[in-house]
């Protein structure tokens, strides 16, 4: 064993290492000191709208003419940020700017970090606060994949029918099979074999089986199903992203979760009803010609429409008879915007089609000028019911004729729908159309709204609990372990700084349970010190010299500390794997806290103890 003089002394590089780690911690934790400014964020509604210095001047002029108090304007890439001193100015400015700038720009409320520019330039930012701390809406949405596959199979039914007809292969029926797949019935097996050759060539993706002598079943391959599911999910995410942009939310989160779910988080949004109207409904459009030859009311009263027509209702419940043939579907729409019709002055939706859609529209309308065309708005909704304890999900569609108008001209790439009740309705319809028709029905399966005041209260209470907890633990440690207790408290403060630094660096979401995790790790971090100090006391009681007792205390307690922290870390990791949202926040802070506390409570406090006591002749220890 070494002599007491060389005991408890760290080589210089260890102090340097600890110093560097703490410096790192302080720098990364620094941005959290500055707080946030209420701000208004302006970005372009479309890609071709420039947000540049000229625009900044225009906005500055607008603010000046309306005498809107603001701190400053900042141009950040493709967005303009206006900072305000208080939220009231912010709300007033946002309303006025929304009005003045029109619909080419998205004006959103935001909280902008007041971190100084030089820190931001270094890539430093404060902790990312979860919705429970900043207020906002959280949605969890589920894409109905069964419906997606069904739609795809129905598409194949049409396609197969067309191909068989083209090749003059005689079939008796084509339809979706009960258990999935497409089933075709033929007159005889010779016709079927011809069809098999043709479809094998034309549609090689489909797997063929023969359930009967004159029937053929075609199914999607596993790989294709997976591709289609992924595609449906991605398309939904893209669409949701577009729609969220329309809502004007500053820092939205739209993420895939699992194989068929999407998380949408909208900080600051309060009007959930409107958010849901726009996010939740999936709408498709169909353009159909009106049936001009038959009596609509008669068809409605008998309930039996003519063979080539379908009976619909308009929004007032009046019957509308439309041709079965669909002229065009919503997926051909490239853009839709609302505005005022130059002729009638009423609200209108302007629609732009893609090339293929434009050609079909042109073909369909050129011989039908003067006839009426209807737009059918199809909403896909899903509901989940509990039947005998089992969850049953049913998807249903609501079809409604939202507009019926006379075709005034050959319609091409651009045309307009008029006859809408209000500008707001025109705007919402255009919004849904522009975002693109969703291919798959989507259902909100979880929703959480936290008001902004509740968020602030949560932060205040969380920090209050953390602060008081720190004081109470600090007082207790000082009382029980004197100077060594003070060293433990210093290590504890360093631990909190490191946790905050790690959270800021990782940009992990801080939630209220996350703050609970920090409070809990504060209690657990001093556990390590308690273990060490109790061991030192025990060694002293056994008659060991002070220096040797310190050495033995740190040395012998280490295994115990490692073991006990490892087991908690195992639980925290399990929690992380299972957790969603706020709970994940708890798991993250707990894990980070355990790791940093190992460093501060063992290495950090050892360094301080060595610094104060190392290499000195000691008669007594203040422990």
């Amino acid at each position, binding site marked *: 064993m070494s002599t007491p003089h060389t005991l408890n002394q760290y080589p210089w590089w260890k102090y340097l290492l600890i110093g560097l780690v703490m410096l790192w911690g302080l720098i990364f934790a620094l941005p959290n000191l500055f707080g946030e400014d209420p701000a208004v964020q302006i970005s372009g509604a479309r890609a071709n709208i420039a947000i540049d210095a000229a625009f900044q001047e225009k906005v500055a002029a607008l603010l000046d003419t309306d005498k809107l108090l603001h701190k400053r304007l900042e141009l950040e890439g493709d967005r303009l940020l206006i900072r305000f001193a208080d939220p009231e100015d912010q709300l007033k400015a946002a309303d006025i700017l929304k009005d003045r700038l029109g619909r080419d720009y998205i004006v959103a409320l935001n909280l902008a970090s007041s971190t100084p520019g030089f820190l931001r330039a270094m890539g430093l930012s404060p902790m990312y606060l979860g919705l429970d701390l900043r207020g906002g809406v959280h949605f969890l949405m589920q894409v109905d994949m069964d419906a997606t596959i069904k739609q795809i199979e129905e598409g194949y039914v049409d396609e197969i029918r067309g191909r068989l007809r083209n090749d003059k292969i005689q079939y008796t029926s084509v339809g979706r099979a009960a258990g999935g797949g497409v089933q075709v019935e033929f007159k005889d097996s010779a016709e079927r074999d011809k069809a098999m050759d043709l479809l094998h060539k034309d549609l090689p993706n489909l797997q063929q089986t023969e359930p009967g002598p004159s029937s053929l079943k075609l199914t999607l391959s596993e790989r294709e199903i997976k591709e289609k599911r992924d595609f449906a999910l991605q398309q939904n995410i893209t669409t949701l992203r577009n729609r969220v942009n329309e809502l004007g939310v500053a820092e939205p989160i739209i993420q895939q979760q699992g194989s068929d779910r999407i998380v949408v988080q909208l900080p600051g949004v309060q009007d959930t009803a409107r958010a849901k109207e726009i996010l*939740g409904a999936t709408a498709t459009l169909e353009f159909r010609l009106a049936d001009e030859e038959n009596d609509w009311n008669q068809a409605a009263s008998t309930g039996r429409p003519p063979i080539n027509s379908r009976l619909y209702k308009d929004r007032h419940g009046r019957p509308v008879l439309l041709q079965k043939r669909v002229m065009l579907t919503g997926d051909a729409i490239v853009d839709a915007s609302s505005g005022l019709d130059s002729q009638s002055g009423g609200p209108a939706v302007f629609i732009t089609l893609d090339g293929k859609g434009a050609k079909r529209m042109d073909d369909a309308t050129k011989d039908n000028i003067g006839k009426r065309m209807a737009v059918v708005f199809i909403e896909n909704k899903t509901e989940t019911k*509990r039947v005998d304890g089992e969850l049953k999900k049913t998807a249903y569609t609501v079809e409604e004729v939202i507009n019926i108008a006379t075709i005034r001209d050959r319609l091409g790439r651009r045309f307009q729908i008029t006859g809408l009740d209000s500008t707001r309705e025109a705007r919402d319809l255009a919004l849904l159309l522009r975002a693109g028709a969703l291919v798959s029905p989507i259902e909100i399966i979880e*929703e959480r709204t936290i008001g902004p005041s509740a968020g602030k209260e949560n932060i205040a*209470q969380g920090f*209050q609990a953390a602060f008081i907890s720190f004081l109470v633990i600090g007082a207790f440690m000082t009382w029980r372990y004197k100077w060594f207790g003070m060293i433990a408290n210093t290590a504890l403060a360093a631990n909190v700084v490191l946790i905050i630094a790690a959270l800021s660096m990782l940009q992990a979401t801080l939630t209220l349970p996350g703050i609970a995790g920090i409070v*809990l790790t504060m209690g657990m971090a001093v556990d390590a010190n308690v273990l060490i100090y109790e061991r030192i006391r025990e060694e002293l009681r056994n008659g060991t010299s002070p220096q040797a007792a310190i050495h033995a205390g740190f040395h012998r307690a280490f295994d115990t500390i490692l*073991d006990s922290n490892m*087991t*908690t870390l195992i639980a925290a990791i399990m929690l992380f794997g299972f957790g969603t949202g706020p709970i994940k926040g708890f798991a993250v802070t707990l894990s980070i806290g355990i790791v940093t506390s190992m460093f501060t409570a063992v290495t950090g406090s050892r360094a301080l103890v060595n610094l104060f006591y190392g290499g000195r002749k000691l008669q007594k220890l203040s422990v």
Partner: protein
Amino acid sequence: MWRFDFYNTKIDFMRWRKLAMGWSITVVLIALGSLLIQGMNLGLDFTGGTVIEVQYPQPVEIPKVREALATAGFGDAQTQHFGTSRDVLIRIPPREAQSNAAALSNSVLSALQSAEGGAGATLARAEFVGPQVGEELVEQGGLAALGALAGILVYVMFRFEWRLAVGTIAATVHDVVFTIGWFSLFQLDFDLTVLAAVLAVIGYSVNDTVVVLDRIRENFRKRRKGSTQEIMNLSINETLSRTTMTSFVTLLSVIVMYFFGGTVMHGFSIAMIVGIVVGTYSSIYIASATALYLGVSREDLLPRAKEAADESP
């Protein structure tokens, strides 16, 4: 000065192990019985449904809120004050048509605002959880708990010895059942944060156990004399001070959280408080006593090389 030390104690813990075991088994049976008969008062996260928290500018009476809700067609809603007399918590069970349930919070709020004395009421928090989400959570929560237990079992087996590992797990399961049983017995709201606390209890409860086990191992190696029972007693007495002290410090921070962390953290704090207290007791008693019943002996804890030498005739 009184320093609540437990130094130089010579309590014969193992002598009372039968009593302790009997007590623990009784408590666990009561907890399981309560779980079977009463079940859990599961929170929104697990059952699905809607919870709405509304803040009024002035104190409001619950019957009036109920009346306003009933007229709006929410007769099945549960209403209670939450924190202050200005805050009201409304729970609405899962509805038949889910698409309507998702829009519920807005209609509830507008119904309250239009009722007498409701002007200026604001939505503080609204949560809607679909039934399928809840079912998954129960399943995943159970899996996470089992995963944590399995991970800890493997770790303790690797670091110590299988009998001690089994003892540790017995102690941990005891703590979890006790904590969950507490929530069942008193019908406290068991939500997602409480589940997180229970998982944290699993991790933390092992902390104290490991302290005792470490000392048992150390003493077995250091002392050549003494029966297993004596060594265990000695180890528990030697570590008593730090076992209680570490629990006490963590308990402090959790108690602070209960009083100052806001109502949202109440369930979490209670679960942690119960779990830590019970965890300290079980570390002292259940873990070592179980290992003793399983017949752990000095030879099992000696370093590997020596162990091999001892086994050779």
